[in-house]
């Protein structure tokens, strides 16, 4: 008997209310304490102060006073960037998006499908209130944009969900603990130095074996699920490989490009950044890596409008005057957001034009390299790799062939396709921290499909996916499978390193 797409998952399916119920008072206390401890001050970060995102927008718009959780605001959306009616109307209710939507795959419910969510958005414009039910189904959306790829009608779900999330963050009052937890994430992840600090002690106690002892004593199991998920997700912080502010091109210069170092990327995957810069230089690019902050991807995808716009403005300020041909991005989530700056800042008279011009120069690194064409010599790497499509690369940016092409140009490299490639791994920005249960299910599903390819290693272009897949494999007892970014693979090939360096 075979089970497809989750099989009869009904019995053990993740129950929407479970997560909240399971987190008891202890949980609330811990989360608040953690939020406080990390949220205080930001001395070490470059620029970028933080905002109480909801409040400032609420003031500018002057409407949408949110009420206590449990009661509701009617209608669900106000007229500051509601999900646009025109875009909603593009949906002809055909259902073609259902089978690739990870939440539909898991739960088999209409309201947790793209078609259902769009239906809810429509109802929220005039007929239905913003209440717990509605918000729940929007929250459960991973923002993976598989539905955008699947939709023959061209529905721009990306814009719809972003607008919806913005409205939710402004108009819906989350429970105190939910708010605190989210606040903690946003005080932490966009700030590499804080993130490093937060992950640092974890590393220390890992070394001392405290975690194992905690686990054995059973204390770990009582830590609320979200914190547990986060803890399981964050690996050791490797020694940081710094990137110079300017790296000259090798040989004749073909372009001058800026690179974004990313937040999670910089802390947990700094070797990826170093590899990216070396590859770009080897291919004839002068590479500029100015002092920089967060691009705002996480905040954008979570609907924290004001915060995200500020990150976007700062990022434009940072790169704009460097006289760059392209902005090259090696993290899928960041790249997709930066390509959207033009849209995000469309209302800002000072930035609208600049943002548009900026976005037009943004390229994913594989996309850019294929556009440039290979020049440096590739040395053989005899290995079979499974390539995992990051949602924000494949679905949001439509970049599928270029990374595969990049790998296939390396002699000896075999690229394996993963079954259900279009279904999200469950990482999805902050999703695996705020919705750990469905994220875990998706992660394990992805890990199984990866293992089934029989590949010797995994290659993927997004730090979030790497963390998620790593954590899933580990839970399943398969943490031996090595993982790399396409740039690390290409870097190894260009430098003529033995394949073993990738398989360590």
């Amino acid at each position, binding site marked *: 008997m075979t089970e497809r797409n989750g099989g009869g998952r009904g019995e053990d399916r993740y129950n929407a209310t479970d997560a909240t119920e399971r987190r008891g008072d202890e949980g609330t206390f811990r989360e608040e304490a953690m939020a406080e401890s990390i949220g205080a001050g930001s001395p070490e970060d470059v620029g970028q102060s933080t905002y109480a995102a909801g409040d400032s927008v609420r003031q500018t718009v002057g409407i949408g006073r949110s009420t206590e959780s449990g009661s509701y605001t009617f209608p669900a959306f106000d007229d500051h960037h509601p999900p646009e009616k025109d875009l909603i109307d593009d949906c002809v209710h055909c259902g073609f998006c259902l089978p690739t939507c990870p939440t539909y795959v898991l739960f088999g419910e209409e309201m947790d499908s793209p078609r259902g969510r769009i*239906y809810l958005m429509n109802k929220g414009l005039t007929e239905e209130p913003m209440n717990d039910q509605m918000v729940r189904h929007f929250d459960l959306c991973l923002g993976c944009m598989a539905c955008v790829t699947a939709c023959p009608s061209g529905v721009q779900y990306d814009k719809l969900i972003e607008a919806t999330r913005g409205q939710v963050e402004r108009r819906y009052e989350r429970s105190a603990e939910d708010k605190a937890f989210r606040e903690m994430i946003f005080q932490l992840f966009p700030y590499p130095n804080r993130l490093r600090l937060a992950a640092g002690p974890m590393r220390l106690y890992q070394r001392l074996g405290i975690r194992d002892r905690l686990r054995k004593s059973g204390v770990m199991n009582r830590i609320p699920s979200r914190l547990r998920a986060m803890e399981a997700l964050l690996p050791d912080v490797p020694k940081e490989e710094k990137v110079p502010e300017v790296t000259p091109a090798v040989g004749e210069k073909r372009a001058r490009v800026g690179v974004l170092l990313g937040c999670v990327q910089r802390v947990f995957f700094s070797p990826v950044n170093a590899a990216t810069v070396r590859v770009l230089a080897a291919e004839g690019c002068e590479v500029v890596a100015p002092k920089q902050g967060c691009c705002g991807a996480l905040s954008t995808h979570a609907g924290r409008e004001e915060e995200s716009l500020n990150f976007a403005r700062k990022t434009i300020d940072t790169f704009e005057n460097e006289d760059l041909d392209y902005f090259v991005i090696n993290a899928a989530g960041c790249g997709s957001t930066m390509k959207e700056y033009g849209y995000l800042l469309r209302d800002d008279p000072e930035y609208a034009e600049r943002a548009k011009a900026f976005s037009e120069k943004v390229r994913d690194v594989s996309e850019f390299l294929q556009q440039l064409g290979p020049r440096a010599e590739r040395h053989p790497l005899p290995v079979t790799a499974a390539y995992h499509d990051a949602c924000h690369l494949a679905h949001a940016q439509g970049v599928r062939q270029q990374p595969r092409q990049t790998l296939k140009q390396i002699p000896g490299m075999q690229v394996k396709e993963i079954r259900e490639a279009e279904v999200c791994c469950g990482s999805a920005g902050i999703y695996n921290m705020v919705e750990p249960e469905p994220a875990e299910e998706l992660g394990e599903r992805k890990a199984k499909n990866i293992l089934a390819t029989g590949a010797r290693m995994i290659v993927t272009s997004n730090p979030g996916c790497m963390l998620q897949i790593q954590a899933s494999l580990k839970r399943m007892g398969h943490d031996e499978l090595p993982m790399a970014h396409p740039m690390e693979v290409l870097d190894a090939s260009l430098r003529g390193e033995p394949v073993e360096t990738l398989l360590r």
Partner: protein
Amino acid sequence: MERSRLIQAMEDILGPEGVIHEREQLRTYECDGLMNYRVIPDLVVLPVNAEQVQKIVRLCYDEGIPYVARGSGTGLSGGALPVESGVLIVMSRMKRILEVDLENERVVVEPGVINLWVSQEVADEGYYYAPDPASQLVSSIGGNLAENSGGVHCLKYGFTTNHVTGAEVVLPDGSVAHLGGGKAPDEPGYDLLGAFVGSEGTLGIATSITLRVLRKPEAVRTLLAAFKDTEEAGDAVSGIIGGGIVPAAIEMMDRLCLEAVEVAVSPGFPDAGAVLIVELDGPEAEVENQFERTMKICEDSNASEIRVAEDDAERALFWKGRKAAFAAMGRVSNDYYVQDSVVPRTELGAVLKRISDLGEEYGMRVANVFHAGDGNLHPLVLYDGEVEGEAEKAEKLAGDIVFACLEHGGSLTGEHGIGEDKKKYMPKMFTEEDLDTMQLLRCAFDPHYLCNPGKMFPTPRLCGERPGPFRMHPVQKAGLAELF
């Protein structure tokens, strides 16, 4: 039964995760693939196995609560439209492939399994499941069964009914029946399975379905031919079929449809008034010979361009363009209303002309994409539901198109079913006696009129009000109907 007690009773059967009762959540189930009709169900239930379905149906039967089955909700005739104060039984969690028995060329599935998964499951062994509705990547086998769905390859291979060999069915009184066969091809007795296929969810709920899978053909050749207009393309179709060739598929798309598809999935189709996709399959030698002849016939019908799919990827691209056609209408219009009439192939040209005239009369755009080989039209009336009166106008135009098809000796529906949408046209096609005969069958299965009531037939006649010729019905009087 009070609603809260009903919820409790359903939760006892399904657990809280199997029952949906909040208003906003229910609203997402208020329509299927056809958005013109909307009814908010009282409850939605999501069973995970046949036993649960049986308990749900029995509860409904005992309490006199009407219910409707729903698969993936892609039906285009409102078949899965909920009934007021009724329960919607959604099969989307019953999605296990229960058995693959290739020695007997059969696969047993739960009804929520998606059509395409069946072919994927047996592809490595060289098999496939033939019925291929354009919605095959999302529509469920249960829905396909209930609608007797067909697809582009039905010209040669037949509809769902030709590929279902058995079904386990929960009857409207909550009992379970096994219709059709085991492994042997022919069953004695009434062909109840034949009656059940295409019954649009009015005779009971299928909980497991046995499908016949076929060996993949030795050779497949596909071409795409462009023509000045649908008339010339129609000539080519007549030429091919008249020449004794039975292609696996012949599909036609007109200009408006081509435009939409190009925006949606960029298949790179030629800029033309009409495009035909012709596919031949079978033994190598036969296919080669017929393919040559088909090319010749297209050329003789003034094809401005002929492209032959060089490999599977190119063939897939041709089909991708075709299969995205309905959904792609969202690119050129806010709303569309699709009809599904079948006309004798010889009348194709005349009917297409009439449709285009009607469109002009109404001042509305009508796109055409259809199974040209068997005359199954899909005129898509484009309109904007936000504009006052447009929806009604579109519906009226669609109605006139149906009448035109009937006048030319056609039928109401080829594959999308009657459902809610076309029931009012049934008397145009059938006599009262015909309809009464169908009612009798329905009453035999569903004497209390609880199973998808109000669909398919124009006047919701209760089974108590025996229609004319059958007033004194001994079978039912004797309670024998309960035997089903």
